[in-house]
């Protein structure tokens, strides 16, 4: 079981939660179980081909999964996945 931190823009899709728990042996499986539990997040996380959208950054603990093994990166019990969408608010 990993913890997934939900950014503000995705919270309406998970019932307002800031963190959710999700099962999976790798990043792709954890995000997939998140999307299964909260279907509104699927279109925001994944493209039509099932690949992670390029505008969504995912970190395993503090490291970008793009420099690890991407969606195949192994997730261990107690790990935290951080979903980071770009934000531009300034005013």
């Amino acid at each position, binding site marked *: 079981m990993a913890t997934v931190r939900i950014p503000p823009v995705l919270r309406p899709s998970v019932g307002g939660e800031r963190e959710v728990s999700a099962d999976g042996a790798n990043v792709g499986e954890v995000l997939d179980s998140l999307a299964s539990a909260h279907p509104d997040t699927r279109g925001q996380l994944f493209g039509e081909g099932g690949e992670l959208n390029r505008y969504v950054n995912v970190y395993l603990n503090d490291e970008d999964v793009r420099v690890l093994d991407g969606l195949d990166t192994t997730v261990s019990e107690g790990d935290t996945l*951080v979903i*980071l969408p770009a934000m531009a608010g*300034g005013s």
Partner: protein
Amino acid sequence: MPSGAEFIRQIKSEIDEVDPSDVKPLVNNGVAIVDVRETDEFVAGHLPGAKHVPRAYLEQRIEGVAPDRSQRVVLYCASGNRSALAAHTLIKDLGYENVQSMTGGYTLWKDRGYDVVVPRSLSPEQRERYSRHLLVPEVGLEGQMKLLDAKVLCLGAGGLGSPIALYLAAAGVGTLGIVDDDVVDLSNLQRQVIHTTAGIGTPKVDSAEAAVKDLNPDVNVVKYQTRLDASNIMEIIEGYDVIVDGVDNFPTRYLLNDASVRLGIPVVSAAILGFEGQLSVFAPHDGPCYRCLFPVPPPAELAPSCGANGVLGVLPGTMGLLQATEVIKLITGSGTPLIGRLLMYDALDATTTELKVRRDPECPICSRDPEDISDDEMGVFPDYEAFCAAAG
């Protein structure tokens, strides 16, 4: 009891003295040359490369300039008496093993015609205004001079820009450029603390300039009442040492990134939404750029603005001041800047999270040598508005 003169003679007999002609080859040669005079004497002129430790602070501060007790240390004052007393203290009380006092002090050095450094100095009023900076070694006189010489461009005089401009002005940043095409609105005042109720309806650059000048007349404000776009960005940002990004839309963030990478100007960037903020420093070629972090902007439904979604009024204050802190660190060269790291702040949870940001070796912008970019390419940008609209 001995007279003062007899006491000093006694002290000098117990320490080593060295003639200025023997100190001359030691300048900038790895030997700690320490000026033990008062601050006003030091700033009027000193030996090249000399460290300043007033005699009154000798015991407290000597380790900052000469941490190794076996290293060679040459002390000087105006005529050689105070430095002899200081040398005696270092040897007898602190256990320094290789300390000498320069005979005749700065006066004899100067009479011999050897090189001196006359540092630029602060006016008495500036010395008072910035006294709390002068007291911290990480800023000090040198750092304060750097701040006074610095040119910082503040993009936006809104939620983030308000605290940034106020605190950078207070810190004595010499030139503060402010870009904003908006006018002050009542709904801004919940967070945009540089503006006032009386200023509603006036251009934000004018309102911000008035507040900055009230706070610190040392600051030269350069106003740009315009929106940054592809046609004006190179002209506006060129010549600034640091850019502070508080803009509220993706097209401008990408445009700014590309232009700042081309010109090699670091950008201290923050974004806010609701109760959360993000902060990072993009230093071209020393670390990742904005495109390395976010290769493409999100579609519009995932990129709400504060105007549409609201923001806790205090949050831009918190994030803006973290930005201002990074700006001051970049200018003074102190500390470890937030390069290659992204700080997330969650105000409701009172937590911070730090993520690593890597350079993308295939980044379409910062993986290229700006020197290799042809003149035709320089200053030419794709139409970002259309690009972002297409992405959404």
